[in-house]
């Protein structure tokens, strides 16, 4: 459906996208995962037609992206007129996509109902909570029933409840056949929502595939976590030279290299009188993959 071929975008000396090629099939829920500044928003803006690439082509159904009505774009910020009501905002954006009269009214009503805002339709957006604004921000991009929805980090600053509501809404749309490109730097979001994920950093796609395919690129099958305490500090120091060790929120996470013998791991722990119950083995996450690919965490 959507195809990017060798797309390059520069801002002065900075190369934001470096020869990115990507094909997204109809009905796919594609996740674009990367840290801030990786090039996600630039890629989104190119597909949305907000900017032009220096090189490469972007096509939709084999044709250059000319018909904007085929796309729906959810910007990273809450792009709504906060002094206008929810209904006025949706009517405005619907009108800009050529919707008129009863059809527009019907779609506005349906959209408000779909995000549980029908009873607040006449209230100014500035009186809404952050989560309500995010839901309205999302649905404003769908009034004209686009073929492809671009969501540029649509859950920034949203409480967990509203985030789940947005996820449920998007999953329902995806099940109904909508093609979605979803950019995020939260691996949990990409893991939950996306049927295929592209990991992007420094303007390049580093890895592409579904979750299982991506994780097979890791040289280990498990990662081991244990508490970061004074008692475990000497052990963590020993492990630092043996594999990838990260520490986050009071927990060490050890990712062994290929061929690493776990028996050696536990022997070292025993020699330092650390009981086995301190250690938990996990299936690795996209975070581990990103660390493996870039040497950095997603939040760095």
């Amino acid at each position, binding site marked *: 459906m959507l195809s990017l071929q060798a797309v390059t975008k520069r801002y002065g000396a900075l190369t934001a996208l470096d020869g990115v090629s990507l094909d997204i099939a109809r009905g796919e829920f594609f996740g674009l995962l990367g840290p801030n500044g990786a090039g996600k928003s630039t890629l989104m803006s190119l597909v949305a037609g907000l900017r032009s690439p220096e090189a490469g082509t972007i096509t939709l159904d084999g044709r250059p992206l000319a018909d*904007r009505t085929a796309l729906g774009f959810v910007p990273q910020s809450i792009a709504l007129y906060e002094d206008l009501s929810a209904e006025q905002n949706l009517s405005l954006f619907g009108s*800009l996509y050529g919707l008129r009269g009863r059809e527009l009214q019907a779609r506005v009503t349906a959209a408000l109902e779909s995000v549980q805002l029908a009873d607040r339709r006449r209230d100014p957006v500035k009186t809404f909570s952050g989560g309500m604004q995010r839901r309205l921000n999302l649905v404003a991009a769908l009034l004209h029933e686009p073929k492809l929805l671009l969501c540029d980090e649509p859950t920034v600053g949203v409480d967990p409840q509203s985030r789940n509501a947005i996820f449920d809404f998007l999953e329902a749309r995806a099940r109904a056949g909508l093609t979605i490109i979803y950019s995020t730097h939260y691996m949990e979001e990409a893991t939950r929502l996306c049927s295929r994920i592209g990991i992007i950093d420094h303007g390049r796609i580093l890895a592409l595939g579904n979750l299982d395919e991506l994780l097979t690129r890791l040289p280990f099958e498990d990662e081991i976590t244990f508490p970061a305490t004074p008692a475990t500090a000497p052990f963590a120091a020993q492990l630092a030279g043996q594999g990838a060790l990260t520490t986050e929120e009071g927990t060490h996470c050890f990712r062994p290299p290929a061929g690493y013998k776990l028996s050696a791991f536990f022997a070292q722990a025993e020699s330092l009188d650390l009981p086995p119950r301190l250690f938990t083995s996990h299936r690795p996450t996209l975070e581990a993959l990103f660390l493996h690919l870039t040497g950095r965490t997603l939040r760095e």
Partner: protein
Amino acid sequence: MRTILTLIHKDFSLFIRDKASVSLTFIVPVALIYVFGQVFGINRKDTGPSGIPFAVVNASANPAAGQLLNALRAESAFKVVTEFKNPDGTTRPLTEDDLRPLMKQNAFRFALVIPADLIAEKRFGLRLRILSNPRNDIETQTVNGILQKVIFSNVPELLGQSLQSRARDLVGQPQLKDFNARIARTVADTFGVDAAVVERDIADGNFGLRRLDQLEETPPAGAATGSPASTTTRQDVFSQIVKIETEQVVGQDVKAPAATRVVGGWAMMFLLFALSGSATSVFDEKKAGLYQRLLAAPVRRSQILLGKFCWGVLVGLVQLVTLFLAGQLMFGINITGHLPTLAVLCVAAAAACTAFGMLLAAIAPTPQAASGLATFLILMMSAVGGAWFPISFMPDFIQTIAKFTIVYWSMEGFAQVLWAGASLTDLLPILGILTAIAAGVMAIAVWRFNRGTIFG
């Protein structure tokens, strides 16, 4: 076109919802124009100064000095003070020694001392002493001017007495008396009047100037004597000596001349403020990511800018017409008689001002910078363009600069329409200039928008 109308409708909805904007666009300017009108005394019959506290100490026994004091009392510009109020509430005549301490206490800023030797034989002319606290230069010059007018218009014999006194000193009393008698006899023989009366008038310094103000122009048959025009003639001696006939060629039918002259400039200033304020909305929309959303839709940059421009012109037109109609209600300016022509001119002026606001949004890096730059440029344009003072009062180079401002050309246009009753054809050059300014400034704004980060 439908997209532009949708965007204009959006701006209208935002405007209507923003009570502060509505108030600042319509209510505040109307209120300020009313206040300005009162401050500048528009529609007051006597537009000059009034009630300036003015102390007078009269130490002269000359009867003309008393007449001068009475004339000063009759002058509405002055509130004459001649008495000193004691702490116990009693009063006494002011003395020269009282004046300086009272002036330092700001009891009054001007005082006139008429000395005992108002007229002296050893010198020519009158001797008067004015004490002043010239903290306001215009007020000081005004007071001096009014004082001179009062002296020469009301007590011209003081000059005659001065001449007589000087002549007495030079030739001696007997010879002067003989000279006066000869002159009186000649006048009496020639005009058939009483020689003794003429000789006494000459001796008193009354060379006939006083008689001039008792003359009346022969009234037309049936006209009532003592009409306002003839009264004015009698009171002003020098208007009898130098007859100046004035003929107003343009604007004879203007009902409220003072207001008609100034309201256009004020309205332009408020329009500029209102439209430059709308420039900040461009920054708000960018900050909210709304341009991303609009441009991802089937909306082009040019449509966004054109929508903003059309909305600005519409608001400007409505604001200007509202302010002029308020001027009609408050000050009696004739607007309805010129409404179609005025509306066309308002569109051109609003277009130029909107383009100015768009340029500010295009060149300023932040809304704060845009606001500061707008205030600076609007005040400059208003002052230089003639919204505050007639530009003929300004130096030549400022008058040249004025011709590069929107305010100047808009005011010229308003004057053409409201003062001279110009037709649309007469207005074409000014409309052309305003349209050219709008197009030129807008072109720069669009160029800057395309190069800048507003849509980036």
